[in-house]
């Protein structure tokens, strides 16, 4: 990317070749290019261009291509000349493109002419790749020509996808780390129903072995056993749905249902440290548009931090409160308040940087990732120390406008 200066003197990002092609009216200063420069010189100019350039006539047939276009598409000039532009476009875009040109010629309505557009181009070998295609119009001696500029976006797209993939991978690792830290609590939570099942069955066997008829008790115990087996399964289902690798997807959701889903995980983590975890969630809170698992990741992360902060506190201060409210700025506000020692203000700036941690275990990624998730959702994540001791970590999320 380079910076160009407009005539007016303001800096502007130099548009890639032909991103905003102008319609060149006949009779303008460079209309007689061919004659002034000479055909050979003109070809040399075209061929020097890094972007693929094609000239198309009114019927959409290719009348000229440069070397970049040839190598980009894998066709020779001879194979392209006189052929329809559709040949080098993916089926989907080809149909659309015909429409655009036809529509423009009939109605003058610009769908592609004069506007840049991302389309999928097709190489000779049939492979499809993303290009930025922009088409300009030239009127020469009463004839209409279209100049198409094609820029291969494969590398850009790849980089974008890689960045996205990396980000998702980091978050996945972070979720796994969170779960890893909670492994003991998870094991406990699965052990509970198993233990209850074992005890119920043992009791049933003993009841049956006794002569008295106590079928009601046995039946009721069997019902409990059934429920406990499902309970263990549910814990595993929650862990799996939280930790599996997945695509990003945002949808409208209420914060209450989002938090209720991870509530059992959070509660058992708190319970493992004999911490009381309270939720203040109004079921009437408005919807947000969010990637559910990501926001759950943030919430769980902040709860985990809270748990770590008060693990060593005396019993009456081992309390965490999660509150969701609508703020005055009509943003949804989620706050997790602990009664721990608070955060040293001198750490404020470093707290959200990756790999910074005050814990003996942990990667120091939790808060950095949490903040990046919330920022990507258009919200803010921060903390404050409270007067009565302890800290509140809070984040906001924009409320989904009602349709």
């Amino acid at each position, binding site marked *: 990317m380079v910076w160009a200066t407009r005539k007016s003197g303001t800096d502007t990002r130099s548009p890639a070749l032909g991103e905003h092609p102008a319609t060149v009216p006949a009779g303008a200063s460079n209309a007689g290019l061919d004659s002034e420069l000479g055909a050979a010189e003109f070809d040399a100019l075209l061929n020097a261009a890094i972007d693929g350039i094609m000239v198309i006539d009114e019927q959409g047939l290719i009348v000229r291509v440069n070397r970049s276009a040839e190598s980009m598409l894998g066709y020779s000039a001879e194979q392209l000349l006189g052929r329809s532009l559709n040949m080098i476009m993916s089926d989907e875009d080809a149909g659309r493109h015909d429409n655009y040109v036809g529509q423009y010629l009939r109605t003058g309505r610009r769908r592609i002419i004069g506007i840049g557009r991302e389309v999928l181009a097709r190489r000779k070998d049939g492979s499809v790749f993303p290009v930025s295609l922009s088409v300009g119009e030239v009127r020469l001696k009463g004839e209409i020509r279209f100049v198409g500029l094609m820029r291969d976006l494969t590398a850009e797209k790849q980089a974008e996808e890689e960045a996205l993939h990396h980000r998702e991978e980091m978050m996945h690792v972070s979720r796994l780390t969170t779960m890893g830290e909670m492994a*003991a609590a998870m*094991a*406990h939570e699965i*052990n*509970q*129903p*198993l*233990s*209850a*099942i*074992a*005890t*119920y069955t*043992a*009791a*049933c066997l*003993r*009841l049956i072995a*006794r002569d008295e008829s106590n079928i009601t*008790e046995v039946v009721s*115990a069997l019902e*409990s056993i059934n*429920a*406990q087996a499902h*309970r263990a399964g549910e814990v595993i289902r929650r862990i799996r749905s939280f930790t599996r690798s997945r695509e990003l997807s945002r949808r409208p959701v209420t914060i209450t249902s989002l938090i209720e889903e991870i509530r059992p995980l959070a509660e058992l983590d*708190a*319970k*493992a440290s*004999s*911490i*009381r*975890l309270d939720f203040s969630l109004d079921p009437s809170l408005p919807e947000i548009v969010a990637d559910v698992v990501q926001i759950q990741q943030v919430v769980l992360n902040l709860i985990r931090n809270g748990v770590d902060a008060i693990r060593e506190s005396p*019993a009456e201060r081992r309390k965490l409160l999660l509150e969701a409210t609508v703020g005055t700025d009509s943003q949804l506000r989620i706050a997790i308040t602990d009664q721990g020692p608070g955060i040293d203000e001198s750490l404020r700036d470093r707290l959200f940087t990756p790999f910074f941690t005050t814990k003996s275990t942990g990667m120091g990624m939790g808060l950095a990732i949490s903040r990046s998730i919330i920022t990507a959702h258009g919200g803010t994540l921060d903390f404050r120390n409270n007067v009565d001791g302890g800290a509140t970590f809070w984040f906001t999320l924009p409320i989904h406008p009602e349709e």
Partner: protein
Amino acid sequence: MNELSTVFVVDDDQAVRDSLGLLLKSVGINSRLFDSAQALIDAYDPDWRGCVVLDIRMPGMSGMELQQQLIELHCALPVIFITGHGDVPMAVDAMQKGAFDFIQKPFRDQELLDRINQAINLDAAQRSEEEQQRAVGERYETLTPREREVMECVVRGLANKVIAMDLELSQRTVEIHRARVMEKMHARSLAELVRMSLMIEGTAGSRA
């Protein structure tokens, strides 16, 4: 099985608690179930007999903290901790503070029942010893100062003649006092009297 004994179960997990209650019922042991440590403390009565079965991990007051509170209440009920997989260091700590035993979840029912029975028996033994001690103490209270002096000499193994000299009494008077002591203390032999005197000393020591 001691009819008066009850197992006091504290577990915040409804299913675990309920299943323990049923298991105890299936072998004819009374139980009382509490969903939190605080609930047990609130209901606590020094006359309770049996044992406490306690989940080491609970929200609010933890099992460990409940144990501490029971110690402060001079509760002598044996405490059995139920622990999860990773709680062994905690359980060891609890044992050092006088817990009767701990058992890891998930456990065999017989394993738990055996320990519960042992704990109940221990409590019953402790109780009967305490009761004996109290009875002996009460009897001792009925002795006159002179009789107590004589008893002290008797349990030291002194002969009547020596006691008479030491206390400047006639041998006959010592014999009468001695017979009164044996009678009032319900001691059938010298050995029994010696055991009772040790019991009284023990209480005196622990009360000091």
